[in-house]
């Protein structure tokens, strides 16, 4: 497997990791809020979920670009 093939294959991993992280985050938030349903808990977890969802979307997009070969050596995205 060449480096570019590896980069593309890993792109699938990043695309999966995004939703997986959101699922774990939302699940933990629901459990913690149910355990202690006070405003502080809701605010904390609300902030976490609100902040990390767009980042997870960014990770999926990054994975998509990687899978499509945007970061291949030939594309030279960050190299001369």
């Amino acid at each position, binding site marked *: 497997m060449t480096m570019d093939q590896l980069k593309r294959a890993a792109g699938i991993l990043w695309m999966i990791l995004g939703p997986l992280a959101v699922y774990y985050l939302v699940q933990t938030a629901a459990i913690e809020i149910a355990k202690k349903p006070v405003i502080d808990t809701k605010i904390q977890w609300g902030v976490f979920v609100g902040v990390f969802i767009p980042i997870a979307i960014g990770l999926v997009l*990054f994975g998509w670009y990687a899978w499509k070969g945007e970061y291949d050596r030939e594309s030279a*995205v960050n190299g001369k």
Partner: protein
Amino acid sequence: MGGYLQPLKSKHPFILNATSNPPEKGLWKVIGASSLGTLIEWYDFYIFGSLATVLASQFFPKENPTAALLSTLATFAAGFVVRPFGALVFGRIGDMVGRKYTFLLTLVIMGGSTFAIGLVPGYARIGYAAPILVLVLRLLQGLALGGEYGGAATYVAEHAPTGRRGFYTSWIQTTATLGLFVSLGVILITRQVLDSDPIASIAKFNDWGWRIPFLLSIVLVVVSVYIRMKMEESPLFAKLKREGNTAKNPLKESFARKANLKLVLLALFGAAMGQGVVWYTGQFYAQSFLENVCHVDFAQSRTILIWAILFATPFFVVFGGWSDRVGRKWIMLLGMLLAVFTYRPLFGAMERITSPDLSASVTDQRESSVIGSDDPSTKTLVTTHSFPDGTVITSTGPIVGFGDQFNFNAPGVKWNKVMGNSRYWSLVGIIFIMILYVTMVYGPIAAFLVELFPTRIRYTSMSLPYHIGNGIFGGLTPFIATLLTTIYANDVLVGLWYPIVITSVCFVIGALYVSGRSGSSANETNE
């Protein structure tokens, strides 16, 4: 070639080049003025976090101390979460109007907000208006910081010669840690000078003296604004402006064009994300761990950090300069890798060093009770454990359950540990190692980010990934790590899984996708 950029042959007028570098003396003026302002902004930002407990008692309902502390931490977190928005707002202004005026503006906003926090009356006097005002001012601080760093790094880099950008921008990189250093120093000194009796001095500090570090900020800011006013605009940006080539819509150019957006994503997930958590774990979480998990004395936990920062800070420049010769990528990634594999052993060692066998100590006990009260429930037992190496551990707990005074995990018992010489310096050594990792990941990153993006949208493009990485992934580290320890309470090191996992992912992405070579073509792809 040492750095990421080669002398470019691009037809584009906005590329980073070194055709009009100022003389060496002028460059040091640029670095000095930029660094001073940035240091002050970090100082302003960190005194709030360092005084979280005191602020909780002043601005949030005292009936529920946990809620009060959480509210402050949430405010603290709000300061971090808002930073990327500051990056967008001020990055856009910086790419359209200019670097100089934008980071003058952020400095004034930051200084004004910090000064105003020092003036806000407490909750006891104005009720809920107090926490609301503090929250708003904290948000302004976060916005200002989001605009400051990218401007300062860009400004210095655009003055620096090709092949030496890592070295020159690394001086800007020292400011975040030095800002923390100054904030800790000012707080410690203020705590001790308000009265000849140390206990009375601390009481005065908690009552009103905490305002001094905030109010002091205005003096620092006035000096820094005066110096910055005398500076010229960045030569590259000035040239762009003369030629009418500044960006009309930097946000659109930065994030709506795939060629640039993919670089923004790479900068975030392959460098800034890991750098942020390594930064905050090695400094903030380490100090929080010392104080809250290891129960090291308030002043000692801070002086330990101060010494470690003092010894490690020169390495920002060492690694920044080195990155000009060997490239940025592997220095940053090595720092991340070391962090991933050694965080648990290092934090475990801190826990062991601060938890000596109490049965090996000379123990002295005395009862203490509320004056004039015969109620046995108000009585406490103060136990002092003295060790041959000078370590003194004091536990204070209810008189009932006497045996628990020998158990570090006993509920209701408060611990205060003053470390003897050898333990103290061992802790300094451990934190030094962790800050060394910080210097590896943070020293070269300004040059790395600056070189990734073209001049016309550089301020906007580099600021956003930096502040998501440093502000959100990094800034929330102490908060998330502490939260993990409350969810999985039987493992004091469980909080470390957050920085370890984030840094691991960043390492893999960085190793796979970030090129170890020059980033010149990055500019060319950003037409």
